[in-house]
């Protein structure tokens, strides 16, 4: 009689631990959202309450109409979208070409190239930013969203090539040959056979490239130093964080608006992402 009882207690203990872990993990995110809806008096109160007594949209309104920093949120959203979307599109294409090369061909520097990718991926951005700043200054790409996109494309390439390589290799070569027997040329084989089959992989890697570009801070901070209207969202969030009296309501509202797209995006592709994450963890 004791055994089912013991098993039930253990199951209960496990589930309780699970809920505790989830609660602790979600707490900071919950606190961000809750603060964003609190009026100033409740935020400054020395006895914080988990939920706002008088929920308000004031903080969001301040962020959206720009009364805090002098420029509305939309300007920075546009900058971030511009940089992110352009770098995701270009880096996916460039990475796909490279992934086909390393997955489908045997050539002399193949292993060298793969190892180079592994090493290069680990170079610290805050070190390279010094040399890159001087280079970009010479070619007038400072304060430029195009310059920033170029960097984001390049810095997401090592990981995206590395991940896409596995997806390309997983497409059976026989399928391509079958299409070729039916008379398809190399380009048609690529478009009609390889591309549709690699598409899920492209989605996964695009998410990585998206998250990287959307979240990137060091380059944006350094390269967009003087021109406020060019700021991307991460720089914007820290910008009015550093200024004088801190308006936590506005900062939390801004960071909700900044985080929300990533979270939604992330929840949609979660399952795929998880396999990609694992592939990345084990393969590099």
């Amino acid at each position, binding site marked *: 009689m004791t055994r089912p009882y013991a098993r039930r207690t253990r*199951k209960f203990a*496990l*589930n309780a631990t*699970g*809920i505790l*872990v989830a609660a602790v*993990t*979600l707490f*900071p*995110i919950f*606190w961000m959202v809750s603060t964003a809806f609190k009026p100033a008096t409740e*935020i400054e*109160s*020395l006895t914080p309450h988990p939920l706002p007594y008088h929920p308000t949209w004031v903080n969001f309104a301040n962020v959206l109409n720009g009364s805090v920093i002098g420029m509305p949120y939309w300007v920075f959203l546009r900058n971030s979208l511009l940089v992110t979307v352009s770098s995701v599109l270009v880096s996916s294409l460039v*990475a796909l070409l*490279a992934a*086909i*090369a*390393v997955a*489908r061909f045997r050539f002399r520097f193949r292993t060298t190239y*793969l*190892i*180079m990718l592994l090493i290069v991926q*680990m*170079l*610290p951005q*805050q*070190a*390279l930013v010094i*040399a890159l*700043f*001087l*280079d970009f200054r010479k070619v007038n790409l400072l304060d430029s969203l195009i310059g920033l996109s170029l960097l984001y494309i390049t810095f997401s390439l*090592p990981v995206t090539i590395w991940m896409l390589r*596995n997806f390309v*290799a997983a497409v*059976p070569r026989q399928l391509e*040959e079958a299409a*070729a*027997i039916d008379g398809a*040329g190399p380009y048609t084989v690529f478009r009609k056979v390889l591309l549709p089959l690699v598409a899920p992989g492209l989605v996964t890697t695009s998410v990585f490239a998206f*998250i990287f570009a959307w979240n990137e*801070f*060091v380059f944006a901070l350094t390269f967009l130093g003087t021109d406020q209207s060019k700021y991307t969202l*991460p720089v914007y*969030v*820290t910008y009015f*964080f550093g200024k004088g009296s801190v308006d936590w309501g506005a900062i*939390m509202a801004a*960071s909700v608006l*900044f*985080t929300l797209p990533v979270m939604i995006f992330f*929840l949609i592709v*979660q399952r795929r992402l998880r396999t990609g*994450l*694992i592939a990345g*963890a*084990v*393969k*590099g």
Partner: protein
Amino acid sequence: MLSSAKEASPASAPVPVSPNGRWSYLPPSVRRLRRRGPRRRLVPYLLLLPSAAAIGLMLVWPAIQLAIYSFQNYGLPQITGAEPTQWTGFGNFKLVLDDPEFWSSLRISVVFAAVVVPLTLMTGTLVGLLLNRLGRKMASFVSTAALLAWAMPGVSASVIFVWLFDPDGGVADWLLTKLPVWLDGGQKWSGFSWTNAPLPAYTVITLLVVWQGFPFIAVSVLAGLKMIPTELFEAARVDGAGPWRVFWKVTYPILKPIFLVLALLSVIWDFGLFTQAYIVTGELGNRDEFNLGIYAYDKAFTMPPDYGVASALALILTIVLLIITAGYVRASVRQGAIQ
């Protein structure tokens, strides 16, 4: 050893074309796909060209430049063109080694990595083991929660933690004043400022980095656990091993390659931590809270800039990370990641 089934798919098998060296019976279109002539040999290089050019220009070349600048005097007069750059030998490195701020920032980087990496790995492994034993729904709920923390942008996460630990209205100070005295709680925590001294500031950063870092470890460990046949655990349990011994005698040895890679990756990330440390320590405001990365950044981008010294510092940081990366690459090659 962890190569997935993908790698074993027919794609990587040798092309089963010509047992007798002849393949003229294949239609010309297939022959075109498999062509081995000089044109076919050029194709992979052409495909690699764009990525190689970008990586060479914006990743490899700047790293080389850092090495060059670190042996030159490169400051404001040189960038404006008022004075030419000159080779100064090891001058920048001598300046760095004589600077007490360098040693304090290096110490912070080393101690921080030494504390955070084991903490992250332990938390992640425990959560991974937990996820493995939970029912499917519960496991998916907990791992979604964890991955949300992982997906959180570094900037938002940092700003949230600064707010949680704010002296005026932050929830951490309030909680600590409510703690009983025997747990070191009490009124002394009211209005306690976490960012004015290195130890409290890095306590906050530690919590922040563990919070953001453990999900990746947990999910990777879980993936590894799923690959271990359950008979192994059952056999160990039948032999009378408790959970502790099962972990160290069965799970750990099998997952060792994963742990090695995760540990190396964590060291690389945490030793070179920038965004979180930069924001929590007050955006270059507190010099005694610099880690190596912030210190190098400050040398280059605080007036007057000294790109020579900054490059020397950046080079030191890069070399330390490359040495760890060498271990990481070796571990990856051993696992058969490069095929």
